[in-house]
Protein backbone atom coordinates (compact mmCIF):
# COMPACT_ATOMS: atom_id res chain seq x y z
CA UNK A 1 0.00 0.00 0.00
CA UNK A 2 1.31 3.50 -0.82
CA UNK A 3 2.51 5.49 2.16
CA UNK A 4 1.15 8.91 3.11
CA UNK A 5 3.58 10.86 1.01
CA UNK A 6 2.97 8.77 -2.11
CA UNK A 7 -0.76 8.96 -1.53
CA UNK A 8 -0.60 12.73 -1.18
CA UNK A 9 1.38 13.14 -4.39
CA UNK A 10 -1.00 10.92 -6.37
CA UNK A 11 -4.02 12.74 -4.95
CA UNK A 12 -2.51 16.17 -5.60
CA UNK A 13 -1.90 15.14 -9.20
CA UNK A 14 -5.53 14.05 -9.56
CA UNK A 15 -6.66 17.39 -8.15
CA UNK A 16 -4.48 19.52 -10.41
CA UNK A 17 -5.61 17.47 -13.40
CA UNK A 18 -9.28 18.07 -12.69
CA UNK A 19 -9.45 21.50 -11.02
CA UNK A 20 -8.10 24.36 -13.19
CA UNK A 21 -7.98 26.70 -10.18
CA UNK A 22 -5.53 24.62 -8.15
CA UNK A 23 -1.78 25.13 -8.30
CA UNK A 24 0.96 23.06 -6.66
CA UNK A 25 4.11 24.80 -5.46
CA UNK A 26 7.26 22.82 -4.67
CA UNK A 27 10.81 23.51 -3.54
CA UNK A 28 12.57 20.57 -5.22
CA UNK A 29 11.28 18.07 -2.63
CA UNK A 30 8.87 15.66 -4.40
CA UNK A 31 9.30 17.52 -7.72
CA UNK A 32 10.43 14.36 -9.53
CA UNK A 33 7.23 12.60 -8.52
CA UNK A 34 5.15 15.41 -10.01
CA UNK A 35 7.20 15.78 -13.19
CA UNK A 36 4.41 14.43 -15.40
CA UNK A 37 1.88 16.80 -13.83
CA UNK A 38 4.32 19.67 -14.33
CA UNK A 39 4.68 18.82 -18.02
CA UNK A 40 0.93 18.75 -18.38
CA UNK A 41 0.27 21.92 -16.38
CA UNK A 42 3.43 24.02 -16.52
CA UNK A 43 1.59 27.12 -15.31
CA UNK A 44 0.14 25.39 -12.25
CA UNK A 45 2.78 22.93 -11.08
CA UNK A 46 5.64 25.18 -10.08
CA UNK A 47 9.00 24.19 -8.66
CA UNK A 48 10.83 27.25 -7.30
CA UNK A 49 13.99 25.32 -6.44
CA UNK A 50 15.51 25.26 -2.98
CA UNK A 51 13.85 28.52 -1.93
CA UNK A 52 11.43 27.98 0.92
CA UNK A 53 10.66 31.64 1.60
CA UNK A 54 9.70 32.04 -2.04
CA UNK A 55 7.79 28.76 -1.88
CA UNK A 56 5.34 30.13 0.68
CA UNK A 57 5.22 33.65 -0.79
CA UNK A 58 4.47 32.19 -4.21
CA UNK A 59 1.57 30.31 -2.70
CA UNK A 60 0.30 33.58 -1.22
CA UNK A 61 0.66 35.37 -4.55
CA UNK A 62 -1.21 32.61 -6.34
CA UNK A 63 -4.03 32.97 -3.82
CA UNK A 64 -4.06 36.74 -4.45
CA UNK A 65 -4.55 35.95 -8.13
CA UNK A 66 -7.53 33.72 -7.31
CA UNK A 67 -5.92 30.28 -7.41
CA UNK A 68 -5.98 27.66 -4.67
CA UNK A 69 -2.37 26.77 -3.79
CA UNK A 70 -1.11 23.46 -2.43
CA UNK A 71 2.35 24.14 -1.02
CA UNK A 72 4.62 21.24 -0.15
CA UNK A 73 8.02 20.41 1.26
CA UNK A 74 9.56 18.92 4.42
CA UNK A 75 8.11 20.48 7.58
CA UNK A 76 11.45 21.72 8.89
CA UNK A 77 11.70 23.97 5.84
CA UNK A 78 8.04 24.64 5.15
CA UNK A 79 7.00 25.70 8.63
CA UNK A 80 10.15 26.57 10.54
CA UNK A 81 12.36 28.12 7.88
CA UNK A 82 9.52 30.02 6.19
CA UNK A 83 7.51 30.83 9.28
CA UNK A 84 7.47 34.59 8.77
CA UNK A 85 6.08 34.02 5.28
CA UNK A 86 3.35 31.81 6.77
CA UNK A 87 2.60 34.43 9.42
CA UNK A 88 2.60 37.48 7.14
CA UNK A 89 2.04 36.36 3.55
CA UNK A 90 -0.78 33.96 4.41
CA UNK A 91 -2.26 34.71 7.85
CA UNK A 92 -1.82 38.48 7.98
CA UNK A 93 -2.92 38.91 4.35
CA UNK A 94 -5.92 36.66 5.06
CA UNK A 95 -5.01 34.46 2.11
CA UNK A 96 -5.78 30.78 1.93
CA UNK A 97 -3.44 27.90 1.18
CA UNK A 98 -3.09 24.18 1.86
CA UNK A 99 0.37 23.56 3.29
CA UNK A 100 1.35 19.91 3.13
CA UNK A 101 4.47 18.72 4.89
CA UNK A 102 6.32 15.47 5.14
CA UNK A 103 8.93 14.61 7.76
CA UNK A 104 6.92 14.88 10.98
CA UNK A 105 8.98 14.86 14.18
CA UNK A 106 11.56 12.26 13.18
CA UNK A 107 10.54 10.52 9.98
CA UNK A 108 14.11 10.76 8.72
CA UNK A 109 16.11 10.04 11.87
CA UNK A 110 19.34 9.27 10.03
CA UNK A 111 19.34 12.81 8.61
CA UNK A 112 19.70 14.27 12.10
CA UNK A 113 18.25 17.34 13.75
CA UNK A 114 18.21 19.48 10.58
CA UNK A 115 15.39 17.33 9.19
CA UNK A 116 13.31 17.13 12.36
CA UNK A 117 10.58 19.61 13.20
CA UNK A 118 8.60 18.51 16.26
CA UNK A 119 7.70 22.15 16.94
CA UNK A 120 5.82 22.72 13.67
CA UNK A 121 2.29 22.30 15.03
CA UNK A 122 3.09 24.56 18.00
CA UNK A 123 4.31 27.24 15.59
CA UNK A 124 1.21 27.04 13.41
CA UNK A 125 -0.82 27.06 16.63
CA UNK A 126 0.54 30.52 17.40
CA UNK A 127 -1.56 31.82 14.48
CA UNK A 128 -5.35 32.05 14.64
CA UNK A 129 -7.76 30.26 12.35
CA UNK A 130 -5.64 27.47 10.90
CA UNK A 131 -6.91 23.96 10.33
CA UNK A 132 -4.26 21.46 11.41
CA UNK A 133 -4.62 17.87 10.26
CA UNK A 134 -2.35 15.07 11.45
CA UNK A 135 -3.53 12.01 9.52
CA UNK A 136 -2.78 8.60 10.96
CA UNK A 137 -3.22 6.65 7.74
CA UNK A 138 -2.69 7.28 3.99
CA UNK A 139 -6.44 7.10 3.34
CA UNK A 140 -7.01 9.78 5.95
CA UNK A 141 -4.36 11.93 4.30
CA UNK A 142 -6.15 11.57 0.97
CA UNK A 143 -9.54 12.41 2.43
CA UNK A 144 -8.21 15.38 4.40
CA UNK A 145 -6.50 16.77 1.30
CA UNK A 146 -9.65 16.37 -0.79
CA UNK A 147 -11.66 18.06 1.96
CA UNK A 148 -9.17 20.93 2.28
CA UNK A 149 -8.98 22.06 -1.33
CA UNK A 150 -12.48 23.58 -1.70
CA UNK A 151 -12.93 26.99 -0.11
CA UNK A 152 -10.10 29.27 0.94
CA UNK A 153 -9.07 27.95 4.35
CA UNK A 154 -5.59 28.09 5.76
CA UNK A 155 -4.81 24.44 6.31
CA UNK A 156 -1.73 22.59 7.50
CA UNK A 157 -1.66 18.89 6.59
CA UNK A 158 1.15 17.09 8.41
CA UNK A 159 2.11 13.82 6.75
CA UNK A 160 4.27 11.20 8.40
CA UNK A 161 6.07 7.98 7.64
CA UNK A 162 4.41 6.58 10.75
CA UNK A 163 0.87 5.29 10.34
CA UNK A 164 -1.82 3.15 11.93
CA UNK A 165 -3.06 -0.15 10.47
CA UNK A 166 -6.55 1.06 9.60
CA UNK A 167 -8.00 4.49 8.73
CA UNK A 168 -10.58 6.39 10.76
CA UNK A 169 -12.32 8.84 8.48
CA UNK A 170 -14.66 10.44 10.99
CA UNK A 171 -14.68 14.04 12.12
CA UNK A 172 -13.48 15.40 15.46
CA UNK A 173 -12.68 13.18 18.44
CA UNK A 174 -13.80 9.66 17.52
CA UNK A 175 -14.41 7.10 20.23
CA UNK A 176 -12.36 4.01 19.49
CA UNK A 177 -12.72 2.29 22.86
CA UNK A 178 -14.96 2.99 25.83
CA UNK A 179 -13.86 2.91 29.46
CA UNK A 180 -14.60 4.50 32.84
CA UNK A 181 -11.27 5.40 34.46
CA UNK A 182 -10.36 8.29 32.15
CA UNK A 183 -9.69 9.35 28.60
CA UNK A 184 -6.68 8.94 26.33
CA UNK A 185 -6.55 11.13 23.25
CA UNK A 186 -4.42 9.65 20.46
CA UNK A 187 -3.46 12.05 17.67
CA UNK A 188 -2.74 10.71 14.18
CA UNK A 189 -0.05 8.01 14.02
CA UNK A 190 -0.15 7.55 17.81
CA UNK A 191 -3.37 5.51 17.76
CA UNK A 192 -2.13 1.95 17.21
CA UNK A 193 0.48 2.23 19.93
CA UNK A 194 -2.03 3.82 22.30
CA UNK A 195 -4.46 0.93 21.67
CA UNK A 196 -1.64 -1.50 22.36
CA UNK A 197 -0.60 0.39 25.50
CA UNK A 198 -4.15 0.54 26.88
CA UNK A 199 -4.93 -3.13 26.27
CA UNK A 200 -6.72 -4.30 29.42
CA UNK A 201 -7.00 -0.79 30.86
CA UNK A 202 -10.46 0.56 31.68
CA UNK A 203 -10.05 3.84 29.75
CA UNK A 204 -11.77 5.55 26.84
CA UNK A 205 -9.57 5.99 23.78
CA UNK A 206 -10.41 8.93 21.55
CA UNK A 207 -8.78 9.44 18.17
CA UNK A 208 -8.43 12.50 16.01
CA UNK A 209 -6.63 13.44 12.82
CA UNK A 210 -7.67 17.08 13.26
CA UNK A 211 -6.10 18.98 16.16
CA UNK A 212 -7.14 22.50 15.10
CA UNK A 213 -9.83 23.38 15.61
CA UNK A 214 -9.75 21.17 18.68
CA UNK A 215 -12.97 19.25 19.35
CA UNK A 216 -13.64 20.66 22.83
CA UNK A 217 -17.27 19.52 22.84
CA UNK A 218 -16.23 15.99 21.93
CA UNK A 219 -13.82 15.91 24.85
CA UNK A 220 -16.40 17.31 27.30
CA UNK A 221 -18.88 14.66 26.20
CA UNK A 222 -16.30 11.90 26.69
CA UNK A 223 -14.97 12.77 30.15
CA UNK A 224 -18.28 12.92 32.07
CA UNK A 225 -17.28 13.42 35.70
CA UNK A 226 -13.99 11.52 35.55
CA UNK A 227 -11.77 14.13 34.01
CA UNK A 228 -8.42 12.36 33.88
CA UNK A 229 -7.08 13.01 30.42
CA UNK A 230 -3.91 11.75 28.75
CA UNK A 231 -2.94 13.48 25.54
CA UNK A 232 -0.62 11.55 23.21
CA UNK A 233 0.65 13.73 20.37
CA UNK A 234 3.35 12.84 17.82
CA UNK A 235 5.02 16.24 18.11
CA UNK A 236 6.10 18.62 20.87
CA UNK A 237 4.77 17.42 24.22
CA UNK A 238 1.78 19.43 25.44
CA UNK A 239 1.11 21.27 22.19
CA UNK A 240 -2.64 20.83 22.69
CA UNK A 241 -2.59 21.09 26.50
CA UNK A 242 -4.12 24.56 26.43
CA UNK A 243 -7.02 23.26 24.33
CA UNK A 244 -7.74 20.51 26.86
CA UNK A 245 -7.42 22.98 29.75
CA UNK A 246 -9.85 25.38 28.08
CA UNK A 247 -12.30 22.59 27.26
CA UNK A 248 -12.31 21.46 30.89
CA UNK A 249 -11.97 24.85 32.55
CA UNK A 250 -15.19 24.41 34.55
CA UNK A 251 -14.41 21.01 36.04
CA UNK A 252 -11.53 19.61 38.09
CA UNK A 253 -9.24 17.57 35.89
CA UNK A 254 -5.77 16.11 35.60
CA UNK A 255 -3.80 16.10 32.37
CA UNK A 256 -0.86 13.97 31.26
CA UNK A 257 1.01 15.20 28.18
CA UNK A 258 2.96 12.75 26.06
CA UNK A 259 4.84 13.80 22.97
CA UNK A 260 8.36 14.65 21.88
CA UNK A 261 10.65 15.91 24.59
CA UNK A 262 10.97 19.58 25.46
CA UNK A 263 13.82 19.18 27.92
CA UNK A 264 16.52 18.01 25.53
CA UNK A 265 17.49 18.00 21.90
CA UNK A 266 17.67 14.35 20.89
CA UNK A 267 21.04 14.18 19.21
CA UNK A 268 21.00 10.64 17.85
CA UNK A 269 20.61 9.13 14.39
CA UNK A 270 19.26 5.59 14.20
CA UNK A 271 15.72 4.51 13.42
CA UNK A 272 12.27 5.87 14.13
CA UNK A 273 11.93 3.13 16.75
CA UNK A 274 15.06 4.45 18.48
CA UNK A 275 13.50 7.91 18.61
CA UNK A 276 10.16 6.54 19.81
CA UNK A 277 12.03 5.08 22.79
CA UNK A 278 13.95 8.26 23.57
CA UNK A 279 10.75 10.32 23.54
CA UNK A 280 8.75 7.70 25.44
CA UNK A 281 6.40 7.28 22.51
CA UNK A 282 6.75 3.53 21.94
CA UNK A 283 3.84 1.36 23.11
CA UNK A 284 5.73 0.10 26.16
CA UNK A 285 6.71 3.55 27.40
CA UNK A 286 3.22 4.91 26.75
CA UNK A 287 1.76 1.99 28.75
CA UNK A 288 4.04 2.74 31.71
CA UNK A 289 3.19 6.45 31.64
CA UNK A 290 -0.55 5.77 31.43
CA UNK A 291 -0.54 3.18 34.22
CA UNK A 292 1.27 5.56 36.53
CA UNK A 293 -1.10 8.40 35.64
CA UNK A 294 -4.39 6.55 35.88
CA UNK A 295 -3.50 4.70 39.07
CA UNK A 296 -1.95 7.78 40.66
Amino acid at each position, binding site marked *: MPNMRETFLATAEEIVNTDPDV*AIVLADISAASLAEAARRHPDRV*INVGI*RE*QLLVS*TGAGLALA*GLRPIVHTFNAFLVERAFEQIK*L*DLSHQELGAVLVSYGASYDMPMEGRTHQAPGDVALIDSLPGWYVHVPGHPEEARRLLLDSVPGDSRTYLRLSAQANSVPHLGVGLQTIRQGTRGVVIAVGPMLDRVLQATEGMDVTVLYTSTVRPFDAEGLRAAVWDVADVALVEPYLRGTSAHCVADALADRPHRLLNLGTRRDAEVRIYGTRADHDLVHGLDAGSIALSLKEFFTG
Partner: protein
Amino acid sequence: MTTTTSEPGYADLPRLISLMTGDDKHHAAAESTVDVLWVLFDRVLDLGPETARRPGRDRFLLSKGHGPMAYYAVLVAKGWLDEDELADWSSARSRLGHHPDRVRAPGVEISSGSLGHGLPIAVGTALGLRARRFSSRIVTLVGDAELDEGSNHEAIVVAARLGLDKLTTVVVDNQSSTHGWPGGIARRFETEGWAVRTVSGRDHEALYDAFTTPHPGRPLAVVTVVEPKGAH
Protein backbone atom coordinates in the same frame (compact mmCIF):
# COMPACT_ATOMS: atom_id res chain seq x y z
CA MET B 1 -12.33 66.39 -0.10
CA THR B 2 -16.02 65.84 0.49
CA THR B 3 -16.90 69.02 -1.34
CA THR B 4 -14.26 69.12 -4.06
CA THR B 5 -15.45 69.08 -7.62
CA SER B 6 -12.25 68.18 -9.45
CA GLU B 7 -9.94 65.26 -8.80
CA PRO B 8 -6.81 66.21 -6.87
CA GLY B 9 -3.59 65.98 -8.83
CA TYR B 10 0.14 65.75 -8.37
CA ALA B 11 0.27 69.31 -7.04
CA ASP B 12 -1.94 68.27 -4.14
CA LEU B 13 0.33 65.49 -2.93
CA PRO B 14 2.67 67.59 -0.72
CA ARG B 15 -0.33 69.06 1.07
CA LEU B 16 -1.92 65.63 1.53
CA ILE B 17 1.34 64.17 2.80
CA SER B 18 1.75 67.03 5.25
CA LEU B 19 -1.58 66.10 6.86
CA MET B 20 0.03 62.90 8.15
CA THR B 21 2.32 63.75 11.06
CA GLY B 22 4.11 61.63 13.61
CA ASP B 23 6.20 59.27 11.48
CA ASP B 24 9.07 61.66 10.99
CA LYS B 25 11.78 59.06 10.80
CA HIS B 26 10.16 57.72 7.65
CA HIS B 27 9.56 61.00 5.85
CA ALA B 28 12.56 60.32 3.65
CA ALA B 29 10.96 57.04 2.65
CA ALA B 30 7.71 58.77 1.73
CA GLU B 31 9.47 61.50 -0.19
CA SER B 32 11.52 59.01 -2.17
CA THR B 33 8.52 57.24 -3.64
CA VAL B 34 6.05 60.02 -4.36
CA ASP B 35 6.88 60.60 -8.03
CA VAL B 36 7.09 56.91 -8.88
CA LEU B 37 3.76 56.26 -7.22
CA TRP B 38 2.13 59.18 -8.99
CA VAL B 39 3.28 58.12 -12.46
CA LEU B 40 2.23 54.52 -11.87
CA PHE B 41 -1.24 55.34 -10.55
CA ASP B 42 -1.89 58.27 -12.87
CA ARG B 43 -0.62 56.96 -16.19
CA VAL B 44 0.66 53.39 -16.16
CA LEU B 45 -1.55 51.02 -14.19
CA ASP B 46 -5.10 50.04 -15.11
CA LEU B 47 -6.67 50.10 -11.67
CA GLY B 48 -9.01 52.21 -9.64
CA PRO B 49 -11.75 52.07 -7.01
CA GLU B 50 -14.38 51.19 -9.59
CA THR B 51 -12.50 48.07 -10.72
CA ALA B 52 -11.15 47.07 -7.33
CA ARG B 53 -12.45 43.51 -7.53
CA ARG B 54 -12.00 42.90 -11.24
CA PRO B 55 -9.89 39.74 -11.47
CA GLY B 56 -7.97 41.01 -14.48
CA ARG B 57 -6.99 44.39 -12.99
CA ASP B 58 -3.39 45.48 -12.81
CA ARG B 59 -1.78 45.01 -9.40
CA PHE B 60 0.44 47.31 -7.39
CA LEU B 61 2.17 45.64 -4.45
CA LEU B 62 3.89 48.11 -2.15
CA SER B 63 6.64 46.00 -0.63
CA LYS B 64 8.43 48.83 1.10
CA GLY B 65 5.59 49.59 3.50
CA HIS B 66 7.65 52.02 5.58
CA GLY B 67 6.67 55.64 5.24
CA PRO B 68 3.40 55.06 3.37
CA MET B 69 2.42 58.76 3.49
CA ALA B 70 3.01 59.23 -0.24
CA TYR B 71 1.09 56.02 -0.96
CA TYR B 72 -1.92 57.13 1.08
CA ALA B 73 -1.78 60.57 -0.54
CA VAL B 74 -1.92 58.99 -3.99
CA LEU B 75 -4.78 56.72 -2.91
CA VAL B 76 -6.65 59.84 -1.79
CA ALA B 77 -5.90 61.59 -5.06
CA LYS B 78 -7.20 58.61 -7.01
CA GLY B 79 -10.39 58.26 -5.02
CA TRP B 80 -9.64 55.21 -2.87
CA LEU B 81 -9.49 57.10 0.41
CA ASP B 82 -11.01 60.28 1.77
CA GLU B 83 -8.72 63.17 2.59
CA ASP B 84 -10.50 63.58 5.92
CA GLU B 85 -8.97 60.31 7.10
CA LEU B 86 -5.37 61.42 6.83
CA ALA B 87 -4.98 63.68 9.86
CA ASP B 88 -6.14 60.91 12.21
CA TRP B 89 -3.90 58.27 10.65
CA SER B 90 -2.20 55.74 12.97
CA SER B 91 -4.74 56.27 15.74
CA ALA B 92 -6.76 53.36 17.08
CA ARG B 93 -9.74 54.74 15.17
CA SER B 94 -7.95 54.88 11.83
CA ARG B 95 -7.59 52.18 9.22
CA LEU B 96 -4.37 53.82 8.03
CA GLY B 97 -1.25 52.84 9.96
CA HIS B 98 2.46 53.37 9.62
CA HIS B 99 2.38 50.20 7.55
CA PRO B 100 -0.59 49.59 5.26
CA ASP B 101 -3.11 46.81 5.89
CA ARG B 102 -4.86 45.29 2.88
CA VAL B 103 -7.71 43.96 4.98
CA ARG B 104 -8.57 47.47 6.19
CA ALA B 105 -7.56 50.02 3.56
CA PRO B 106 -9.13 49.97 0.09
CA GLY B 107 -6.69 49.91 -2.80
CA VAL B 108 -3.98 48.23 -0.73
CA GLU B 109 -3.17 44.92 -2.42
CA ILE B 110 -0.80 43.62 0.26
CA SER B 111 -0.13 44.42 3.88
CA SER B 112 3.53 45.26 4.18
CA GLY B 113 6.04 46.44 6.72
CA SER B 114 8.40 43.54 7.15
CA LEU B 115 10.83 43.90 4.25
CA GLY B 116 11.39 41.41 1.48
CA HIS B 117 7.85 40.10 1.05
CA GLY B 118 6.35 42.08 -1.83
CA LEU B 119 8.52 40.84 -4.67
CA PRO B 120 8.19 37.15 -3.70
CA ILE B 121 4.41 37.53 -3.40
CA ALA B 122 4.39 39.37 -6.74
CA VAL B 123 6.08 36.36 -8.34
CA GLY B 124 3.20 34.17 -7.18
CA THR B 125 0.64 36.72 -8.34
CA ALA B 126 2.27 36.93 -11.76
CA LEU B 127 2.26 33.14 -12.01
CA GLY B 128 -1.37 33.00 -10.95
CA LEU B 129 -2.59 35.67 -13.34
CA ARG B 130 -0.66 34.01 -16.15
CA ALA B 131 -2.23 30.65 -15.34
CA ARG B 132 -5.64 32.30 -15.47
CA ARG B 133 -4.77 33.87 -18.86
CA PHE B 134 -5.03 37.47 -17.70
CA SER B 135 -2.67 39.99 -19.24
CA SER B 136 -2.57 42.14 -16.10
CA ARG B 137 0.61 43.93 -15.10
CA ILE B 138 2.03 43.33 -11.66
CA VAL B 139 4.22 46.08 -10.26
CA THR B 140 5.99 45.88 -6.92
CA LEU B 141 7.96 48.65 -5.28
CA VAL B 142 11.03 47.94 -3.14
CA GLY B 143 13.78 50.08 -1.68
CA ASP B 144 17.51 49.70 -2.25
CA ALA B 145 17.98 48.85 1.43
CA GLU B 146 15.16 46.35 1.21
CA LEU B 147 17.21 44.41 -1.33
CA ASP B 148 19.45 43.46 1.60
CA GLU B 149 16.77 40.89 2.49
CA GLY B 150 17.69 37.54 0.98
CA SER B 151 14.10 36.62 0.18
CA ASN B 152 14.19 39.12 -2.70
CA HIS B 153 17.03 37.24 -4.30
CA GLU B 154 15.09 33.98 -4.28
CA ALA B 155 12.43 35.85 -6.26
CA ILE B 156 14.73 37.74 -8.63
CA VAL B 157 16.20 34.51 -9.98
CA VAL B 158 12.94 32.63 -10.37
CA ALA B 159 10.98 35.51 -11.94
CA ALA B 160 13.46 35.72 -14.77
CA ARG B 161 13.84 31.97 -15.29
CA LEU B 162 10.08 31.56 -15.50
CA GLY B 163 9.79 34.44 -17.97
CA LEU B 164 7.38 36.55 -15.93
CA ASP B 165 7.24 39.42 -18.41
CA LYS B 166 4.18 41.02 -16.81
CA LEU B 167 6.14 41.60 -13.62
CA THR B 168 7.87 44.90 -12.90
CA THR B 169 10.02 45.62 -9.88
CA VAL B 170 10.60 49.27 -9.12
CA VAL B 171 13.65 49.82 -6.96
CA VAL B 172 13.61 53.24 -5.38
CA ASP B 173 17.29 53.91 -4.78
CA ASN B 174 17.93 56.54 -2.15
CA GLN B 175 21.20 54.88 -1.18
CA SER B 176 20.02 53.85 2.25
CA SER B 177 21.38 50.30 2.27
CA THR B 178 23.88 49.93 5.11
CA HIS B 179 26.55 48.17 3.07
CA GLY B 180 25.43 49.65 -0.22
CA TRP B 181 24.99 48.37 -3.76
CA PRO B 182 27.52 50.46 -5.66
CA GLY B 183 26.22 50.07 -9.20
CA GLY B 184 25.02 46.67 -8.17
CA ILE B 185 21.24 46.97 -8.20
CA ALA B 186 20.86 47.10 -11.96
CA ARG B 187 23.61 44.51 -12.37
CA ARG B 188 21.91 42.13 -9.94
CA PHE B 189 18.72 42.08 -12.01
CA GLU B 190 20.57 42.05 -15.36
CA THR B 191 22.65 39.06 -14.37
CA GLU B 192 19.52 37.03 -13.81
CA GLY B 193 17.93 38.06 -17.10
CA TRP B 194 15.68 40.99 -16.30
CA ALA B 195 15.24 43.95 -18.62
CA VAL B 196 16.66 46.84 -16.57
CA ARG B 197 16.23 50.58 -16.88
CA THR B 198 17.79 53.17 -14.61
CA VAL B 199 16.11 56.57 -14.53
CA SER B 200 15.67 59.58 -12.33
CA GLY B 201 13.00 58.96 -9.73
CA ARG B 202 11.87 62.57 -10.19
CA ASP B 203 11.51 62.66 -13.99
CA HIS B 204 7.94 61.76 -14.81
CA GLU B 205 8.49 61.37 -18.56
CA ALA B 206 11.52 59.16 -18.04
CA LEU B 207 9.61 57.07 -15.51
CA TYR B 208 6.68 56.71 -17.88
CA ASP B 209 8.93 55.63 -20.73
CA ALA B 210 10.76 53.16 -18.50
CA PHE B 211 7.50 51.59 -17.40
CA THR B 212 5.86 51.45 -20.82
CA THR B 213 8.60 50.57 -23.32
CA PRO B 214 8.13 46.89 -24.21
CA HIS B 215 10.42 44.22 -22.74
CA PRO B 216 9.20 40.99 -24.32
CA GLY B 217 9.86 37.73 -22.53
CA ARG B 218 11.56 39.25 -19.51
CA PRO B 219 10.48 40.81 -16.26
CA LEU B 220 11.34 44.48 -15.92
CA ALA B 221 13.35 46.20 -13.21
CA VAL B 222 13.21 49.98 -13.10
CA VAL B 223 15.84 51.49 -10.83
CA THR B 224 14.66 54.97 -9.92
CA VAL B 225 17.41 57.08 -8.46
CA VAL B 226 16.50 59.79 -5.98
CA GLU B 227 18.44 61.97 -3.57
CA PRO B 228 20.41 60.01 -0.95
CA LYS B 229 18.47 59.53 2.27
CA GLY B 230 19.10 62.42 4.61
CA ALA B 231 20.33 64.75 1.86
CA HIS B 232 17.41 67.11 2.22
